[in-house]
């Protein structure tokens, strides 16, 4: 008897709680089709991230090539316009890396949006540019450290056979460095997905902002924020798994 009573009370409060949550979830996600804020926000987040990563890789490759070419062969080029050009570009790249890595990405985003592209109405484009340029600085370091991780003897062996700098890179260094670079690049994608959550600062309706809009309509913060967090978590866990699979395959192909 006694046992039954407690059980009943617990059950009652549990179903109470369940009902309350049903209402909250309904209010936050179903009513007025509010879930669409999350779906559209996620779609925006993925688009910004995807294109920013592409831009980041393009910029990063160029920056890494300039930096490591400069460091490796500046001494062996004879004075002239080419040498001046390499020095000049190297300086630009160094400046780029220092500024981007020395300032918060949210500040970079706001400067892009409110200052440099103040006249632009395409906020998504501006965000892609801002995150791409930001990511490029980190990708450059990923590639550079991937290249640096290859033993100097490999480079010397290539050069001693008569390959020039670029041939040595293409035939000998890059194929080996790619094993370190690819997983790190995939990681950069994961970092960027989370980083784009600040796009709301310039009024972009991405995932985080979508959750925030729901909160402002329903005055109920927890469900939308929890949903946003869970969606990020699922994406990140998924891609992390993918990266570690990639890493394992790379390691296995290494004989």
């Amino acid at each position, binding site marked *: 008897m006694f046992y039954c009573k407690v059980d009943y009370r617990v059950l009652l409060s549990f179903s109470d709680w369940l009902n309350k949550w049903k209402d909250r979830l309904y209010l936050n996600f179903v009513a007025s089709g509010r879930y669409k804020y999350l779906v559209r926000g996620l779609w925006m987040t993925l688009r910004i991230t995807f294109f920013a990563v592409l831009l980041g890789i393009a910029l990063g490759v160029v920056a890494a090539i300039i930096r490591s070419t400069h460091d490796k062969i500046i001494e062996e080029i*004879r004075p002239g316009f080419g040498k001046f050009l390499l020095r000049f570009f190297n300086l630009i790249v160094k400046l780029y890396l220092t500024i981007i890595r020395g300032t918060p990405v949210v500040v970079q985003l706001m400067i892009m949006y409110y200052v440099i592209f103040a006249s632009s109405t395409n906020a998504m484009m501006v965000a892609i540019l801002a995150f791409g340029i930001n990511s490029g600085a980190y990708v450059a370091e990923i590639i550079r450290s991937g290249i640096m991780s290859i033993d100097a003897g490999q480079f010397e062996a290539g*050069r*001693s*056979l*008569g*390959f020039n700098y670029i041939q040595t890179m293409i035939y000998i260094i890059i194929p080996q460095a790619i094993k370190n670079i690819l997983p790190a690049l995939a990681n950069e994608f994961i970092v960027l997905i989370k980083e784009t959550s600040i796009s709301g600062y310039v009024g972009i309706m991405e995932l985080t902002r979508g959750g925030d809009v729901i909160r402002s309509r329903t005055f109920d913060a927890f469900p939308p924020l929890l949903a946003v967090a869970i969606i990020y978590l699922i994406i990140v866990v998924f891609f992390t798994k993918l990266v570690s699979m990639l890493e394992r395959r790379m390691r296995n192909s290494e*004989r």
Partner: protein
Amino acid sequence: MSAEIKTGEVLISVKDLAKHYKNKAGEIHALDGITTDIKKGEVLVIIGPSGSGKSTFLRSLNLLERPTGGTITFEGQDVMSPKNDINKLRQKMGMVFQHFNLFPHLTIMDNMTLAPKKLLKMSQEEAEKKALQLLERVGLQDRADTYPSQLSGGQKQRIAIVRALCMSPDVLLFDEPTSALDPEMVGEVLDVMKDLAKTGMTMAVVTHEMGFAKEVASRVIFMDAGKIVEEGTPEEIFDNPQNERLKTFLAKVL
């Protein structure tokens, strides 16, 4: 060009070669005025204590190290002149490293054929045929399709030697080719080098293998503190050393 140079004639001429490193304490004279000629068909062995500049000297010859003074002439061409394509010159100067430096992402065959195919524009068949002949010469023809990590140190170094030979170089530079090997593998590498010397290959060898120097060298150079302190035939250097530093050195290594 190389055809004009006959055995016994000067292949590489080195004059007043210097390499200075600047650091906080001042300047290090890794090379302090080296002058010598390497003749075609000669086996030059370079000995000396650690830090005496042997590697720097050898690596200067193909400009892996950039000298700060002096001249190097290879087959009549100024190696340091920007007018001469150093990459072309390096094709004719093979190099064998202490740590082999085989390309781990390529099979033995690809290690050997990469440069001939890309640089000499050899066809696949031609390059492979040549590589196989060389592999047979060092008894590793059955390893063509394996990867470097599947080989022992001695096998790796034998491959490194034939990889250099695939470019048909006019001279081979060896920087302590047996120093990273387990003792039982030193012999197989030295045997390959001895065979090579018999074929008339011009070689410059930095080594601590005094037995090899005595047996194979046409000339021995003793370096200390960036200078050539003594040079001569193996008999002169080993049986009748003049310089005190050379005597001290030999007492330690023999």
